């Protein structure tokens, strides 16, 4: 009863500020609680998988996980000649255990696959030997193993094993940069016939830039029309922009196949009107052209919409003012209208470029042999060759490229100037 109203107690006047701070802190914390689902979602679906990808690209325990004792022992080897009898013994015993246990991810086959990446053709050496090492019960182990397969006398096999026994290492980045380890263990350029990734990175960036540029050329007039036409017409036009946007990606891509293929609509029409002969049908799909056409169409709305939302806010009176002050129409456009559209243009180009650089499904369907992008190679390693570490290394490199472009963009245009609508 005596402390019925403590807040106006004289002794409390000083900490009032603190109390206020406390209350607002609680409120802020409560408000933060509302964002927890989103934060969790981002952590689980974004931060964690990307972290795992980064980790996978430098970490591979397919040797130390299969022959753990050997992986430690081989480090003491100086790399001259062949490892000692002792190391051979540990290897044979570890391999026999791995063969018996058959634990997921810990079988001789896993190690075989890992070594085969760097030493092509050695896969069967491991799997075959694993089937037979159980029979080796006593020394000399070196001779017994070489008797199973004389490739075990090749120092190259042991050098590769030694290198791969480290769980952490740059070897998948070495492969992703079109390089390899030579016989002395130095990193050298891969044979030209086997180089593929760097060229593809460059091609992907060039195609993404080209697609972005074409999108700007096509979207700018459309967005302008959308912004200045009376509501009735602009609504109709808007629907024509949005309808493809809402249509399934696969449907749109296959529609392009029907239109562009050599027996397709365009070629049929050209032949019918005699523009080209029956033999002169043009190849417009299953190549780079097909990739460009289909991707421009699919990414166009991402350029039109930010441009439109910015153009809509530009008062027509600005242009009228410029003209009334004696500016030529082109100059008025160049010096008044165009600069005002830059935030939308910037948003559109960034959006389209970043989407294009990582695009997968459309090039996979219509890219043929020369229209493939880097994401198709990543998908190949995740889905077909099952070299997830190499896929992760390529994915990380793609991520770095995107971040570099984002940084450059920020320096040149300023990310705070972006306007999506």
């Amino acid at each position, binding site marked *: 009863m005596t402390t019925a109203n403590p807040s106006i107690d004289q002794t409390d006047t000083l900490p009032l500020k603190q109390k206020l701070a406390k209350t607002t802190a609680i409120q802020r914390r409560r408000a933060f609680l509302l964002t927890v689902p989103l934060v969790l979602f981002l952590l689980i679906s974004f931060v964690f998988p990307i972290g795992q990808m980064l980790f996978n690209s430098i970490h591979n325990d397919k040797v130390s996980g299969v022959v753990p004792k050997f992986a430690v022992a081989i480090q003491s080897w100086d790399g001259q000649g062949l490892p000692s009898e002792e190391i051979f013994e540990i290897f044979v015993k570890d391999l026999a255990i791995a063969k018996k246990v*058959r*634990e*997921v*991810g*810990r*079988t*001789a*086959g*896993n190690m*075989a*696959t890992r070594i*085969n*990446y760097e030493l*092509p*053709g*050695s*896969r*069967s050496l491991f*799997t075959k030997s694993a089937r037979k090492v159980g029979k080796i019960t006593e020394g000399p182990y070196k001779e017994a193993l070489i008797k199973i397969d004389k490739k075990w006398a090749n120092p190259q096999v042991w050098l590769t094993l030694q290198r791969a026994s480290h769980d952490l290492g740059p070897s998948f980045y070495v492969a992703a940069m079109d390089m390899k380890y030579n016989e002395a263990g130095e990193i050298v350029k891969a044979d030209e*016939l*086997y*180089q*593929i990734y760097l*060229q*593809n990175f460059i*091609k992907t960036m060039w195609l993404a830039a080209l697609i972005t540029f074409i999108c700007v050329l096509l979207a700018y007039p459309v967005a302008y029309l959308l912004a200045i036409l009376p509501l009735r017409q602009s609504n109709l036009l808007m629907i024509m922009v949005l309808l493809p946007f809402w249509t399934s990606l696969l449907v749109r891509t296959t529609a392009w196949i029907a239109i562009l*293929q*050599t*027996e397709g609509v365009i070629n049929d029409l050209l032949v019918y009107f005699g523009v080209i002969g029956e033999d002169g049908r043009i190849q417009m799909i*299953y190549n780079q052209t097909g990739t460009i056409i289909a991707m421009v169409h699919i990414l166009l709305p991402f350029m039109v919409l930010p441009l439109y939302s910015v153009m809509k806010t530009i008062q027509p009176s600005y242009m009228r003012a410029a003209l009334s002050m004696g500016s030529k129409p082109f100059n008025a456009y160049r010096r008044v209208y165009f600069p005002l559209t830059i935030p939308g243009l910037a948003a559109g180009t960034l959006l389209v470029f970043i989407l294009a650089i990582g695009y997968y499904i459309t090039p996979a369907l219509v890219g*043929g*042999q*020369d229209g*493939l992008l880097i994401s198709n*190679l990543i998908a*190949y390693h*995740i*889905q*077909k*060759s*099952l*070299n997830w570490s190499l896929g992760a290394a390529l994915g990380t490199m793609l991520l770095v490229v995107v971040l570099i472009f984002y940084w450059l963009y920020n320096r040149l245009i300023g990310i705070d100037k972006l306007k999506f609508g």
Partner: protein
Amino acid sequence: MNKLVNKTLIAAAVATTMMAGNAYAGSHSESITVVSWGGAYTKSQVEAYHKPWMAATGNTIVSEDFNGGLAEIKAQVEAGNVTWNVVDVELSDAVRGCDEGILEVIDHSTLPDGDNGVPAAEDFLPGALMECAVGNIVWSTVFIHDESKIQGVDGLTDFFDLGKFPGKRGLRKGAKPNLEFALMADGVDPADVYEMLSTDAGIDRAFAKLDTIKDSTVWWESGAQPPQLLADGEVTMTTAYNGRVFNAIASEGKPFVINWDGQIWDLDLWVVPKGAPNQEATMDFVKFSTGTKPLADQASWIPYGPLRKSSFGLVGTFHNNAEIDMGVHMPTAPDNFKRALQNDFEFWADNSDQLNERFNAWLTK
């Protein structure tokens, strides 16, 4: 689309068989997921394996399609969340999956004897029983052309002869089995193909041969594509899986011709991902479907040869046309088998990483 059709088919089958099945299987019925390559091939399996098994046991099968490879199995097993029970894979994948420990080991002694009493171990063709897999069929990659457009195709050499037969060629996107085709077309005897591919000179020779048609090639990825490419006139000749081509000919009346010269044959096998649920029903399905009669029945829907010797004599006519004798359309029929090559799974297990890398690099140049 295929998946939908399959599911509807199965739902219908289940509805009709439930009553019969329940009579003795009681209310204890289980569901397993069987995964295969879709299209006419999955249909043949649904008709010959799934439906009779569901009728006999009262269990249900969910049929799913995939495009081959081990990616899904690996992902499921490593994540500890296996939803596939039985998967139809190529020999090289069966071996690799077994080596990597992502497949269940299968005890061959539990497989049923052939209808003629021969034990399974002797009844199956050599190589059909692997540590983690039971073979069901022989299939083959062949090259095909459209008879209404070109005539007089004589052997694999013509596939690479753009002068004699101008127009596009369809090839599977990947090093396998194009390198083998290239060498055989270049005059190499099937028996020497893999020996030659083990040398740099041999690989160079195969790529050099592929170079001659590279600019005229359309690359396909799933088995349903090549008959479609040929039907659309996109290609003049293409490689394809023999069963699907037969189906386009027999069911859709397409004027396609299968050229068996230089065919490359391979096995398809059932494997069970490690840790698949409902092990008992799963293994029961594997045993049932690789029995003498189901294997023979399967061959009446699509010309993929059964892997049990006891099934050979039972292979009859096409399921809806008694005039088509399935035996002569099998890859292993003597007339078709004159110049044939068996896919060497060990060669590809060792070299596919490297050769595909070179193939991909070659493709973009």
